[in-house]
């Protein structure tokens, strides 16, 4: 199996190459089929890898020497350990489903060649990222997925909103990427080595716990992860990225690409363990982002933006787990999240497409004829997202994170944030569900989805429900497959004492129901057509009724608004705009000031001086013979004077 490893990223890459080079010769439908085949082939190879025993013994393959500088020769090589295996499975699996879904979803688009090219390329890049055995190759995949994200967000490039969103996504993540690159430089300058296994061993051997270098290096890596995973403070690009097609949002901006940051930190966790401060920072960022994302999602009226903020918030849980040292649990939540969030996006996409690209949830609610399958699958995803106890996968993964957060430094605080986030999650997702599917119009539609769309939805819905059963919560009887399997690579999470754990689990189990209830109340007030007290919220489209205002407390509302208004708009957007404007102004100043005024002028000064000298000398040459003779004599006098003197 070792020598076939390259096929995993290789097949989608081949697919994209074929589409790029020969796509002109193929019909539209065939391009889609070709892309699906490429994705399916990658998934098949992954399955074969499972069968070949990758789960017990890491696979490795080195293709060739990539760079040769002195004695440093990084290889183009792959490593498939358990961490990578899980990631590869999710990426190729969800990727395949999204490809399938796209066949129908994008059937009407004219420019399928570009779409599938980038989709396949994305798959290749993401698989490369997780398979890379050195940081350089990882960085290649890292940038490649960023590029595909850019290209696909801006898929409808004629709309400036789309291309701007793509550019914004690329630039913001590039800021994080540069931090990551600097981190790589730092590691390289310290160890002269970028191979992951060697690097991590060396670091553990040479750096003491808490050393400054480790802190700096991990901070820089964290910068990259934060950018890619849309965490505070670099989350601004993700809501805008919803301008892309829904399958793209499902695949990249929910299931796979945005979790690359989580993967990166999990992959380099030995470094983070050397830097406890950074690790705590990871947890803190995660906790803050949970509340931020959930509260912002509360106020959205755009269907997909709710899901985008939800993604931000959910990845916050993963960061929280990472920060608490529960890498396996982060990965667990990553897995379940990949399923239910992809499901949510895909069903939302189906709903939106059925309603002629209507994104406003209120209008969607009024339209009322959504495909029933989409409704039920959305409900499954929503339940999983909200963490409805026992029956959904989201409950198991989120609950474990909540429990482990308690035992971290400042654990109760982190836990409070996370639990509060869970409550908000339940509120916003059920609010959306109720508004869209239990809107004014009765649900009468019998619109059925084509197979390429319905099959992925059903598979994902199934996974969203059952995938949690492989790891039951701490202290419960039943299978505990996940954490022990990862123990060798990622270590075990710590939990508080059993009593507290049970308590926490109880609270976590209650939260979705409270949230659901609150959502119902929220919706009822809305149906009763309670007027909104603040007109500007209305203008903003924040459709909250009086009940919400009264009971769920103004502070939260203010906080949500504040988070959106102050943090995002003012601080980050504002700062970005300021910086951009400032840079532009400075650049213009350089062009006008330095380029023209200083450099050009100094040249023209020089020219003018020369011209002046020419004129001066020229006027002496007035054509009068005596003048010439005089000059000659003067010269002679000076020459002879040299001897006298």
């Amino acid at each position, binding site marked *: 199996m070792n020598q076939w490893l390259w096929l995993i990223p290789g097949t989608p890459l081949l697919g994209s190459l074929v589409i790029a080079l020969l796509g002109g010769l193929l019909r539209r439908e065939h391009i889609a089929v070709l892309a699906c085949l490429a994705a399916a082939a990658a998934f098949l190879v992954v399955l074969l890898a499972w069968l070949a025993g990758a789960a017990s013994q890491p696979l490795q393959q080195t293709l060739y020497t990539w760079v040769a500088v002195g004695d440093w020769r990084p290889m183009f090589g792959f490593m498939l350990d358990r961490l990578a295996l899980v990631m590869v499975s999710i990426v190729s699996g969800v990727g395949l489903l999204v490809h399938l879904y796209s066949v129908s979803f994008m059937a009407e688009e004219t420019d399928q060649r570009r779409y599938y090219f980038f989709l396949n390329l994305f798959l290749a890049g993401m698989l490369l990222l997780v398979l890379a055995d050195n940081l350089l190759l990882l960085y290649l995949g890292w940038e490649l997925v960023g590029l595909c994200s850019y290209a696909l967000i801006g898929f409808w490039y004629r709309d400036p909103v789309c291309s701007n969103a793509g550019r914004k996504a690329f630039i913001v993540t590039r800021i994080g990427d540069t931090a990551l690159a600097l981190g790589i430089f730092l590691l390289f300058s310290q160890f002269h080595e970028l191979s992951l296994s060697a690097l991590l061993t060396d670091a553990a051997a040479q750096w003491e716990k808490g050393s400054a270098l480790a802190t700096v290096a991990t901070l820089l890596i964290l910068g990259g992860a934060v950018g890619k995973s849309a965490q505070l403070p670099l989350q601004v690009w993700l809501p805008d990225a919803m301008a892309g097609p829904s399958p793209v949002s499902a695949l990249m901006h929910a299931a796979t690409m945005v979790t690359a940051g989580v993967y990166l930190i999990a992959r380099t966790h030995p470094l983070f363990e050397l830097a406890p401060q950074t690790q705590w920072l990871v947890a803190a960022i995660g906790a803050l982002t949970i509340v931020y994302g959930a509260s912002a999602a509360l106020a959205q009226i755009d269907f997909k933006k709710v899901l985008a903020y939800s993604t931000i918030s959910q990845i916050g849980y993963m960061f929280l787990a990472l920060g608490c040292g529960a890498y396996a649990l982060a990965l667990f939540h990553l897995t379940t999240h990949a399923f239910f969030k992809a499901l949510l996006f895909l069903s939302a996409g189906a709903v939106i497409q059925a309603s002629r690209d209507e994104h406003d949830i209120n209008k969607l609610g009024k339209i009322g004829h959504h495909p029933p399958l989409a409704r039920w699958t959305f409900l499954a995803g929503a339940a999983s997202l909200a963490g409805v106890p026992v029956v959904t996968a989201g409950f198991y993964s989120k609950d474990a994170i909540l429990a482990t957060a308690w035992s971290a430094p400042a654990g109760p605080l982190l836990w409070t944030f996370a639990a509060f986030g869970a409550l908000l999650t339940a509120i916003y997702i059920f609010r959306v569900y109720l508004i869209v599917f239990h809107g004014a119009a009765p649900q009468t539609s019998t619109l059925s989805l084509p197979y390429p769309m319905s099959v992925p939805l059903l598979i994902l819905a199934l996974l969203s429900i059952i995938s949690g059963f492989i790891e039951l919560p701490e202290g419960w009887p039943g299978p505990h497959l996940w954490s022990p399997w990862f123990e060798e690579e990622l270590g075990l999470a710590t939990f508080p004492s059993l009593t507290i754990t049970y308590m926490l689990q109880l609270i976590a189990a209650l939260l979705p129901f409270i949230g659901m209830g609150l959502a119902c109340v929220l919706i009822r007030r809305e149906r009763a057509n309670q007027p909104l007290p603040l007109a500007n919220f209305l203008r903003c489209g924040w459709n909250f009724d009086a009940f919400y205002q009264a009971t769920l407390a103004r502070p939260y509302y203010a906080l949500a608004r504040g988070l959106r208004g102050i943090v995002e708009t003012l601080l980050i957007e504002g700062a970005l705009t300021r910086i951009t404007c400032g840079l532009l102004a400075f650049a213009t100043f350089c062009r006008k000031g330095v380029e023209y005024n200083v450099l050009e002028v100094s040249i023209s000064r020089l020219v003018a001086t020369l011209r002046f000298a020419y004129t001066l000398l020229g006027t002496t040459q007035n054509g009068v013979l*005596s003048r010439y003779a005089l000059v000659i004599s003067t010269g002679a006098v000076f020459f002879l004077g040299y001897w006298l003197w």
Partner: protein
Amino acid sequence: MIPLSHSLAIAALLFVLGLAVVLLRRELLFILIGLEVMLNGVALTATAAGQYWGNADGQVLVIMLMTVTAAEVAVALILVWLAFDHYRAARVEALTQLREETERRTS
């Protein structure tokens, strides 16, 4: 016996006198005369030095000088005559067709 330095001084004076004529007068004919005076200063130097050193080189120099100058002046006079013929002028100010015209060329 007059010392060499005296005759050299006289000759230098003659040379400078001729020089002054060339520089100060504006009539072409006077300028030519001034040139002749300068050359006479040279001739005097050569003669005096020839007498001082007691060899014939000085005289040779003077003879050559006179011959060549005669030819030179002859040609120069023809040119002056031509100038007078064409321009009705024998002053240097009239002969300024050829000059640097800086003020016109500003581009």
